[in-house]
C-alpha cells in the first residue's frame, strides 16, 4: 500500500494524459468526430510498417512496395493544465489489428462509431474491445437519410453485453461528440469500480 500511495502522489505532480480510441468501419466518421471535439485541428501520425516478415516466401511480392504507411488521426482536449485527453482514430483496415494492440494499451476506453446502414462494419471493433475488456460505448452516427433506429434496436442487433451504452450522435456536432465522450468516461468509471469490487470480493 505504501508504494501505491507514493505512486499516486507522483502522478498528481506530473502531467497526466489519457487516451480514448475512436473505432469503426471505413468512412463512418471517426476523424469527423475527433475533429468536432478536439481543440486542435486533427493531427496525423504515420507509422511505417515493414511487410517483409509477412511475405518472405512470396516472391511475387518482391517488386511491390514493402513498406506501408498507416495513418492515425488524433485530437486533443485539455481538461486543465497537466490533464489532457487524446483521441485516436484507429486505422480502419482489419489488417492493422496489431496496431490496435498498441493503441489500446492503457486506454481509458473506446468509442465504436456505427452507421446503421452498414452495421456489420463495426462488428470487428465491438469484438475486439469486448474480448479485451476495454470499456466502450457504441455511438450511432445518425447520417441524414439513414433510417432512424432506437438505441435498443442497435444494442440488440450488435448483441452487446448488458450495460454497454449505445448513444445516438451526430459526429459533426461538438456537443453531440462531447456527450458521447462523457458517457464513455462515466461508463469506464463504473466498469473500473465494479472490477475493483470484484477483485476484493
Amino acid at each position, binding site marked *: 500500500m505504501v508504494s501505491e500511495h507514493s505512486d499516486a502522489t507522483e502522478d498528481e505532480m506530473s*502531467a*497526466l*494524459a489519457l487516451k480514448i480510441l475512436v473505432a469503426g468501419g471505413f468512412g463512418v466518421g471517426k476523424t469527423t468526430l475527433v475533429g468536432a471535439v478536439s481543440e486542435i485541428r486533427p493531427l496525423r*501520425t504515420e507509422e511505417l510498417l515493414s511487410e517483409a516478415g509477412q511475405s518472405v516466401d512470396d516472391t511475387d511480392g518482391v517488386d511491390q512496395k514493402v513498406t506501408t504507411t498507416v495513418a492515425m488521426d488524433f485530437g486533443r482536449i485539455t481538461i486543465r493544465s497537466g490533464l489532457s485527453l*487524446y483521441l485516436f482514430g484507429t486505422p480502419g483496415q482489419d489488417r492493422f489489428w496489431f496496431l490496435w494492440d498498441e493503441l489500446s494499451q*492503457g486506454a481509458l476506453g473506446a468509442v465504436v462509431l456505427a452507421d446503421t446502414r452498414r452495421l456489420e462494419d463495426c462488428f470487428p471493433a465491438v469484438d475486439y474491445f469486448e474480448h479485451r475488456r476495454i470499456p466502450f460505448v457504441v455511438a450511432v452516427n445518425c447520417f441524414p437519410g439513414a433510417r432512424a433506429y432506437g438505441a435498443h434496436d442497435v444494442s440488440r442487433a450488435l448483441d452487446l453485453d448488458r450495460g454497454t451504452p449505445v448513444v445516438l450522435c451526430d459526429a459533426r456536432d461538438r456537443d453531440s461528440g462531447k456527450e458521447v465522450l462523457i458517457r464513455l468516461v462515466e461508463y469506464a*468509471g463504473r466498469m473500473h469500480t465494479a472490477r475493483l469490487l470484484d477483485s476484493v470480493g
Partner: protein
Amino acid sequence: MTEDTTGVPFQPGSQWYDHEAGPLVRPYAMTGGRTQPGPSGVRFDLIALVTLDTGAPNADDDTSLGPEHRALIELCRRETQSVAELAAGADLPVGVVRVLLGDLLESGCVTVSRPVPPAQLPDERILREVIKGLRAL
C-alpha cells in the same frame, strides 16, 4: 531510368514530383538505420509526454545530435508534447521519432512521462474532473 528496379512500368502522367514523390531521405536514415530506441529499452507510448529538461546541457553543443533531434527539442521547448504530437509536428513517422527520443532521453535532454499501466485507470477523482471538464467545453 532504364535500370529501374522498382519494376513499375513507365506510364505517361505517372511521374511524381516534389512532395508527392515522397521523402528525399529514407526515414530510418535519420536514425542511422536503428529501428528501436537505444539500450535503455524504453517503450514510448503515443501519449507519453515529453518535457524538455531545463537543467540539461545545451543541446547546441552536442554534436551527436542531428537536425531531426533538434527539431524535436524545438517542438518541446514551446510546450510539453505527446509522442504523437511530436511525430505530427516534425512530420516524421512515429517509429523514427521513438528512436530519436531514445537518444534525447539518454543524453538527458528530455524527460518522458511514464505511460499509464494497462488495466489501471486513473482514480475516480480524475475521471470526475474529466467529465466536468468535458461538460464545460
